């Protein structure tokens, strides 16, 4: 095997990035335990409900999950499930099981993350029937293709890979029957920001080159040049977590730019404050009653510093993705 080019700048940095999947998982675990939204599978990835999280964090995750799911589900419906989904940097995400329960499964659902994260996820799936059973149900044979860092089945494939190594990524996806002809949705949640702008640029460019009909949904920080953004960067730095790609997070425009200049035809972006106000308001009212928030300014600042950007390439003319 050819020698691997060293991609990681520092192991500590990568380790810190990997650890963020635990943050997301424990926050989602706590929020779902409080009733913000339903996720019967997250408990198999985070044993205990864990320490209390601040209400603004719970509401922030609610907005993220609702917002991303709205776009994701709309795409799958538009394609009438005749599509693929690739979740890059998926961590311990439970979307596959949700889509199966809701009969919204794409032809194949791919997830990619660092090999050690994937190994953990596969271990959980192997050892917990509520996770493995649905998977086996969607598979044509009795056994899944499992090794230390990958799992492949007819409808669900989890790959351990470094997103900064595009050729390796491309190779692995093709090996597991990625079909470039199918409309494909790529999803990244707080992933691109941990790579340098050129690394993430390569990734989104590869996606634009590979698929003729696709959507890329990117959830991450925005408006980072103000005081709040600076404080966040400093805080994360203290945890050895470098926001290497924060340059693209300056504004909604910079978020869109990174797609428009890498071969994507169209891009839209909204900050989470806007998205929060566009979510079904009766459900928002419901979740706001779950926990009393003592300082609204905290939620506002948080929501204004995250955004969802979605870029499209639409050869098949699947149509626009309306927010309503």
């Amino acid at each position, binding site marked *: 095997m050819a020698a691997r080019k060293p991609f990681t700048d520092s192991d500590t940095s990568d380790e810190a990035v990997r650890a963020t999947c635990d943050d997301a998982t424990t926050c989602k675990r706590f929020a779902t335990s409080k009733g913000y939204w339903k996720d019967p599978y997250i408990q198999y990835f985070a044993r205990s409900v864990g320490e209390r*999280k601040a209400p603004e964090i719970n509401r922030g995750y609610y907005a993220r999950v609702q917002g991303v799911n709205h776009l994701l589900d709309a795409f799958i419906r538009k394609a009438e499930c005749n599509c693929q989904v690739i979740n890059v940097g998926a961590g311990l995400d439970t979307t596959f099981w949700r889509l199966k329960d809701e009969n919204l499964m794409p032809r194949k659902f791919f997830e990619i993350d660092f090999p050690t994260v994937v190994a953990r996820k596969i271990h959980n799936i192997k050892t917990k029937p509520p996770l493995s059973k649905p998977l086996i149900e969607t598979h044509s044979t009795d056994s899944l293709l499992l090794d230390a860092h990958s799992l492949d089945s007819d409808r669900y494939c989890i790959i351990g890979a470094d997103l900064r190594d595009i050729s390796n990524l491309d190779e692995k996806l093709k090996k597991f029957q990625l079909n470039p002809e199918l409309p494909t949705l790529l999803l990244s949640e707080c992933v691109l920001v941990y790579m340098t702008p050129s690394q993430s640029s390569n990734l989104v460019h590869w996606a634009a080159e590979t698929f003729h009909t696709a959507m890329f949904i990117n959830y991450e*920080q925005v408006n980072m040049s103000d005081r709040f953004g600076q404080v966040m960067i400093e805080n994360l730095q203290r945890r050895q977590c470098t926001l290497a790609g924060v340059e693209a997070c300056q504004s909604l425009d910079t978020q869109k730019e990174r797609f428009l200049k890498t071969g994507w035809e169209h891009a839209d972006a909204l900050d989470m404050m806007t998205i929060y106000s566009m979510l079904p308001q009766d459900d928002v009212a419901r979740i706001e009653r779950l926990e009393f928030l003592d300082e609204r300014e905290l939620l506002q600042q948080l929501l204004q510093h995250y955004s969802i950007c979605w870029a499209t390439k639409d050869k098949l003319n699947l149509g626009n993705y309306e927010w309503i």
Partner: protein
Amino acid sequence: MAEGDTEAEQLKEKANKFFKEKDYENAIKYYSEAVDLNPSNAIYYSNRSLAYLRTECYGYALADATKALEIDKNYIKGYYRRATSNMALGKFKAALKDYETVVRVRPNDKDARMKYQECNKIVKQKAFERAIASDEIKKSVVDSLDIENMTIEDDYVGPKLEDGKVTLTFMKEMMDWFKDQKKLHRKCAYQILVQVKDLLSKLPSLVEITLKETEKITICGDTHGQYYDLLNIFKLNGLPSETNPYLFNGDFVDRGSFSLEVILTLFGFKLLYPDNFHLLRGNHETDNMNQMYGFEGEVKAKYTAQMFQLFSEVFQWLPLAQCINSKVLIMHGGLFSEDGVTLEDLRKIDRNRQPPDSGPMCDLLWSDPQPQNGRSISKRGVSCQFGPDVTERFLEQNKLDFIVRSHEVKAEGYEVTHSGKCITVFSAPNYCDQMGNKGAYIHLRGSDLKPEFHQFTAVPHPNVKPMAYANTLMQLGMM
């Protein structure tokens, strides 16, 4: 009778028919049409009121009964309806008054008499319950403590009270001890709490002080468990003393990870300089907030649930407002949901409790100023927002110059609004390790009572593993 009236009467008859058939929705519909045609007929309102009662729309029923009586104050059925509505709404005293009227006018009406007696019984029962509630001495944690016999182990080398008293030496030692993230012995903590509870309970709900010409005071806003920033305030502005008085305007705990260190320091100084160190209650000096935002978790982790209980009791005795030279009023939240509140009203507040959902005590801890005139429903869902005209009227009525409050994070640490009559001061810089805001404190001199603002920025603090809640460094946002 005018043509409209005849038609209205027909609609009423129609409605009555529906009512007899128990079709209350339609009854209401046609009574309403009758009212539209003839809005000065008490009977229509009264009948509709009864239909509303049957459909449990007690608020509407009350409104209609009241309207009926406005039109015709001799309409006995109207009193009946209003009494029934009030009963349903739990307003027994109001209901009793109306039943009294009916019984007086119709002494032979058995049903009226029966309802009156029942209502009377309820009113008496409630009065009795209130009476015994205030007589009953709620058991205090203090009673179950035996502080004298708590022993301090030999290997404890931390600060101890001297002869059971807080001294300046003790305070300095304790602040250093805390700075090194060490724990105060629980006996000392209990001693402080019991003594400060006693001290605070003797204060009025509105504390009034005089600042002499040559004196000044430093007013700080929310500190929210940010101990290292509190130490920085003392560094910048000097330690508290008889000649360096301070007032901390509530929200000492929660959110920040060092709430215990903050509150024990503040309580210690209160004991050391009772007349020159002032503490007012904030909305976070309450059980609900402490349960959610970290303080309860922190106390339970470092000490015990019993100690948290005692903190809760002490918080209940914190005064709610302070008046300086009869000119400047200070409170954590703000002004009131209704006009006409006087300083005398504030003095009279029975504060040894958790704040109610509404009323002056609630407003003092929760309200916020707004730029536009008038009042609005609060974004917080509790209390209200009050405009410059409300501030103006309140100050005028009470012969004050301006108010100082806290409660809201401000980028610059302070904000002057309502043409200088409403000042906000917030002393927790980089709030929650996220907001990047400055903190501020106010110097007020007895000579001119003109506020002087001092800003400061956050200082580093240890990367403490979060307590049960205030998960500051860990929760940096979405990951």
